[in-house]
């Protein structure tokens, strides 16, 4: 279970971008963060992955407190940033090996997973080229593969569909659904409501310091709910 307790974040003293956020996500659930630009989605995500650790409150996953034991927390985590963060002068395969080495994945295991995801995302022709020659979409695919290669228990993705081709979007959605079935918690952000169709158990609307958590149900009209939320802020 992922617990976010009394979370608040301020870039400057007393200038909060998010306040008093409490949230629980159960294993095998997908949480979508939805809001306009500047709503604090990336800020929250950067806290959840341990980049911005100077937040108020606490983040706990599987009884591991992020602030107190970030190393063990990160061992369970897979992260896809909004801008692909890669080492430009490694080849795709070298980068994946770097990640696999950090997570101490056995050679057999990494080989299987690398081949599986490389084929799935059609990266075969690029994987042995330097990353700086990749298109934005291929970089994004590589980052996603790197996030999946160590079989994370918590997968956090910041605007993961941006830059992906339609086929890759479908593949990624299928992967996220499979991960949900295997008990992985997935948190992802988007500013496009259409992208989360059939892909969330909970959705967190965010805008101007305010948040609203909505549970998925068949009768839910998400667009209407979202507009009501935006207008009420």
């Amino acid at each position, binding site marked *: 279970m992922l617990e976010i307790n009394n979370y608040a974040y301020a870039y*400057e003293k007393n200038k909060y971008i998010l306040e008093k956020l409490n949230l629980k996500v159960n294993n095998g659930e997908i949480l979508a963060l939805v809001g306009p630009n500047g709503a604090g989605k990336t800020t929250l995500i950067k806290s959840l992955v341990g980049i911005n650790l100077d937040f108020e409150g606490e983040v706990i996953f599987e009884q591991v407190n992020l602030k107190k034991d970030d190393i063990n927390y990160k061992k369970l985590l897979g992260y896809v*940033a909004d801008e692909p*963060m890669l*080492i430009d002068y490694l080849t795709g395969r070298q980068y994946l090996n770097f990640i696999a080495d950090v997570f101490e994945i056995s050679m057999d295991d990494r080989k299987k997973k690398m081949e599986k995801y490389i084929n799935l995302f059609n990266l075969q022709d690029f994987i042995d080229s*330097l990353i700086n020659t990749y298109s934005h979409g291929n970089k994004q695919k590589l980052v996603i593969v790197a996030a999946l290669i160590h079989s994370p228990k918590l997968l956090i993705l910041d605007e993961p569909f941006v830059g992906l081709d339609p086929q890759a979007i479908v593949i990624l959605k299928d992967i996220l659904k499979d991960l949900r079935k295997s008990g992985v918690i997935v948190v992802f952000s988007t500013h496009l409501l259409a992208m989360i169709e059939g892909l969330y158990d909970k959705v967190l609307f965010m805008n101007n310091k305010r948040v609203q958590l909505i549970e998925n149900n068949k009768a839910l009209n998400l667009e209407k709910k979202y507009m009501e939320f935006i207008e009420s802020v």
Partner: protein
Amino acid sequence: MFNYFLLCYYSLLSVYNRIVNYDKKLIFRLLIIGVPVLFFEQFLIGLFRFLEKVKFNVSNFESYFWAIFLLINIIILVFKKKNNYQMQITDTLPITTSIKNSFQITISFLKIIVIEFLIFFPYLYVNWKNVNSLGLWILLFTMPIIIILFKRLVEYLNFKRLNVVVIVITCLLIILWYEDILLEIKKYFSKIVSGELLFIVSWVILVVISLILLTLTIGYNYKFRVKTKQHVTKKKVIKWRKRNIVLAINHGEILKVRFYLFSYIDNLLYIFLYIGLLYWVNDFVKSKELLMVVLGLIAAMSFISVTGIIKDDDYNIYYRVLPIKVSNFVIGRILLNGLLMSILLVITLILLGLFSIWWIGIWFIIFVTMSLLSILIDLILIKFKISKNVKLQISRLLNVLGNLIMVMIFIYLYYNFNRELYLVVSIIIFVIVSIIEYLIIKIVWENKKVKL
């Protein structure tokens, strides 16, 4: 520790890939750092020799040299923009902060060592067996540690720039004292053991000391970074916002001034570098060190290529992204060249009259001719509206060729003319290029439709 070696391994792999795949950016960055400072070193040596010739008492030449060198190093490092790009990647990986910081320190250390080797190469080539170079070896290995520690201290104390200057001066005084101590140690040991043995022993000792200091530095670094991280980040955010506002209000006006200033500094750098070039070639041709002449030619060509690249970067980054008319900058640069040359003319004449220094003419010719070439390239590019990539290649090629010709002319003149004739030729060429320069400035200034 395993993760530390992993980071080092993959970083080295990354550098290896860049070299194998001929990453121009990396090569030119090395040249940008290495070659100009190499010339600057020669300029300093030449300057001190010159001061000695005119009876200015420079008792401890090396101390001054190292002090100035250190000053440059500190300024570069203190004010250099931090690149935490790769560290962001590791931020989300299960790697401890101390390992990441140790890695970063190691990389900084190696960078400084590489840069210092680039800078000291000619000195080492000539003096490697000399006992006097003990101080150099010690400095070579301990200086990165001192610089890194100093940088961390500045970060930790969060000094403003003015205070940094005060610290730099204090630091210089300490280093001067440090150099004196080294000289004493060297004197003491040279009585006991032979020069070559001392050289080898000093290497071993220095490596051990460096490793100990490195370990200590890692410890200090860890404490400093954890304490200051949040504060520095916030300050940078505020500073960035203020800068954006200023840029928006002035809509380019301030930028223009800034560009002219860049241009001015750029030209000053040219002067320093050409003086250095002259001294360098002069010294080694005299002593018939053919290898050094060849190296000089290569370095000179590389330098000119680099200046070409710097200019191209100006076009790409500043000209295209920001709200400023390109023609203003081009004209401004040409005018500043003209102004600077006028000042140089006065200085040249004074020096010629006072000291009868024959060589002053030749570097001036090189400088003026190169500026002229640079302006001509600008004008050709403007006139024919040549595409960005072609521009880059033409600019590089012309710069390299131009510099090669200049150096060859210099060597030819040196061997084939007597000094008086040399001086006369220098002045004649200077007058001719000045007239051409003036005409070009006039033409460009009057042509209001200049566009890039």
